[in-house]
């Protein structure tokens, strides 16, 4: 079965009328894919002028386009999925700190290097455990998924902690949420310069190259030629100097051997998928599913408890204190329902880091729980409103206190009315829990993305990921229908 899946390749050969170079020349635009979240100095928004892009890669892109006789246009794309997006022609080239690796060279064509960097290991000053790459085994180390550093961490046996930006890993290192950070020296110099941190060592080096779709040898040659001219004229060096990036290491640029690249092979068939459904891979996926289930369950529990308190606080009452509580509860529901849960997660994990430093799992549970509490509160409020008024009067006529009436009459009814909505919310929560990957939790969807980009195939990881979600949500969906049926029968 595994062998069958492994050999299954999703390939569709698309006859292209024009080569990429002809396309660029015809349209007069060189579209280059990059991620603004990579930040200074790569490509980022000018703080002085919102909307204007600056960065050394912006200048390189402009210079390359000028050499090709066209203009450059940046296309925003998540850094981790730059290569798949290149392959589906979202842009012509990738120009965004793309490291030359053998695996990448097999998959896409690579230009000659335009920058040489070191992989720099940072840790908290005084943490003697972090000495070199080998010392990272078992430690939590932050990096960017699908980067050269990420692969080095896997080989070293470190626990990889994924980040989407470059500022956050160093902040988390200061907070003690992770033990070390391994990133390119450009990033380390700009973002890792925080009190309490120190550079442990440079543990490897690599080069930035431009990524081009497989088989587009003409475009590779054109870009290589452009780079050669930019280097001879000294323009490349002056761009790097302008951004304080030029160092000793760069003098070796011309002599660095080009990485083995698919550029030399002229066949145009897309490469075969190499995602292999090994027991190890399957284990990683199951672990991701477990994380998803654990976070969802813990969040739901929290949401139910807080939601219940909110719903009770919103019950009409003549007491002044309770009226203020009701106002607070209404405000809570409006704020948490009216702003994106993604924003709430960012604020909770990064924004409040200096006040309360929560670990990622706690922050994820708290963030989703606080958000879903607003929805649960509304479900319970509707449930409480649906309680037959006559039965509440009957309870009072029997001499029940308010609390006893709540416990014996209102809540049993309200819970019954609320169960279908709660089950539906839990299903939504299972899927929304994929958002917590932005605060470094590797749950099911993140595992799928990493595996898919690594293995150059979205099909099998996608199907596997979807199956696992379905396996979790289908029983819930059955449960919701069961509750609904019971509610219908009770009327």
């Amino acid at each position, binding site marked *: 079965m595994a062998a069958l899946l492994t050999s299954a390749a999703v390939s569709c050969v698309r006859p292209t009328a024009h080569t990429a170079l002809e396309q660029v020349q015809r349209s007069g635009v060189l579209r280059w894919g990059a991620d603004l979240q990579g930040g200074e100095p790569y490509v980022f928004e000018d703080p002085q002028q919102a909307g204007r892009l600056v960065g050394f890669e912006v200048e390189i892109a402009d210079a390359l386009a000028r050499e090709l006789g066209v203009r450059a246009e940046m296309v925003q794309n998540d850094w981790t999925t730059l290569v798949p997006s290149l392959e589906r022609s979202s842009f012509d080239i990738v120009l965004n700190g793309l490291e030359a690796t053998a695996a990448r060279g097999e998959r896409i064509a690579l230009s000659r290097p335009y920058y040489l960097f070191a992989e720099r290991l940072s840790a908290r000053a005084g943490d003697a455990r972090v000495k070199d790459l080998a010392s990272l085994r078992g430690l939590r180390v932050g990096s960017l998924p699908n980067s050269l550093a990420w692969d080095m961490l896997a080989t070293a046996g470190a626990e990889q902690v994924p980040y989407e930006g470059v500022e956050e890993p160093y902040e988390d290192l200061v907070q003690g949420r992770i033990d070390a950070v391994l990133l390119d020296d450009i990033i380390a110099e700009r973002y890792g310069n925080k009190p309490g941190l120190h550079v442990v060592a440079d543990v490897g080096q690599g080069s930035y190259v431009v990524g081009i779709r497989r088989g587009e040898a003409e475009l590779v040659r054109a870009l290589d030629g452009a780079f050669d001219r930019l280097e001879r004229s000294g323009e490349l060096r002056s761009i790097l100097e302008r951004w304080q990036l030029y160092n000793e290491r760069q003098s070796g640029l011309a002599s660095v051997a080009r990485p083995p690249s698919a550029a030399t092979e002229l066949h145009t068939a897309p490469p075969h998928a190499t995602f292999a459904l090994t027991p190890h891979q399957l284990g990683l996926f199951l672990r991701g599913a477990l994380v998803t289930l654990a976070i969802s369950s813990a969040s739901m529990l929290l949401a139910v408890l807080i939601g219940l308190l909110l719903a009770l606080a919103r019950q009409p009452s003549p007491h002044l204190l309770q009226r203020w509580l009701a106002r607070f509860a209404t405000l809570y529901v409006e704020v948490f329902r009216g702003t994106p849960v993604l924003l709430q997660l960012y604020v909770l994990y990064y924004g409040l880091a200096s006040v309360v430093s929560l670990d990622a799992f706690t922050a994820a549970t708290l963030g989703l729980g606080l958000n879903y509490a607003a929805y649960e509160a509304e479900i319970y409020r509707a449930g409480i409103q649906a309680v037959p008024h006559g039965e509440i009067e*009957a309870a009072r006529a029997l001499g029940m206190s308010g609390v006893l009436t709540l416990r014996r009459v209102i809540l*049993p009814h309200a819970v019954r009315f609320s169960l279908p909505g709660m089950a539906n919310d839990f299903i939504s929560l299972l899927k929304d829990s994929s958002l917590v990957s932005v605060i470094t939790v590797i749950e099911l969807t993140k595992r799928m993305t990493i595996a898919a980009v690594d293995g150059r195939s979205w099909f099998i990881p996608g199907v596997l990921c979807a199956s696992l979600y379905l396996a979790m949500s289908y029983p819930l969906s059955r449960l919701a229908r069961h509750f609904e049926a019971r509610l219908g029968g009770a009327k």
Partner: protein
Amino acid sequence: MSGLQTLSLGKSFAERVIFEEVSIAVAAGEAFALMGPSGAGKSTFLRCLNGLERADHGTVVVGGARIEADLSPAAFAAAARIVRGRVGFVFQGHHLFSHRSVLDNVLEGPVHVRRVPREQCVGRALALLEKVGIAHRADALPRQLSHGEQQRAAIARALAMDPEVLLLDEPTSALDADRTELLSQLLRDLRKDGVALITVTHDPRFALSLGARVYQLIERHVVPAEL
């Protein structure tokens, strides 16, 4: 057994006076029927007697317990709960707890309000269901009962609290002649046990069959009815 008295009871909704200066006394084992035109406020009067509705003036006295109209909200609630412990109420719509069995409806008061252990209450609850003639429906849910059975369950639920006074709101409104006679019999038996009955009704024959003093609420006053 002490029955129920009202002293100058009065109630208005906004500008409209429902009743005023109502002083009645219903002794233990006595029956009192209140008649009158629809919408005159008979049910409101009945609800004021156990504090489900708050009177604007006057006092309700049940033995040593009393509800004064001019108490603070918290004190009113506390007083009403004491009175409700001695006064049972049978709603026109019954209002049985729909999520509990008939037996559990009857047990709800003794077990959860009086906090008597359930095992000690079950025997008496079944005896009450036997007395109202629906012991065979003890495990049924309220919605599985006929209208007459639901009413009997509601009466059993009220009797489980050993009330000195039983308030009934239009108890015959959905019963045919035979069932009305059965209900009347049951209530006459309760009178013999010393329970004071106060019923709102539009059926003079039912009122007479109870042997009740018959009054009517007419133009804001409770006065003897001429039948």
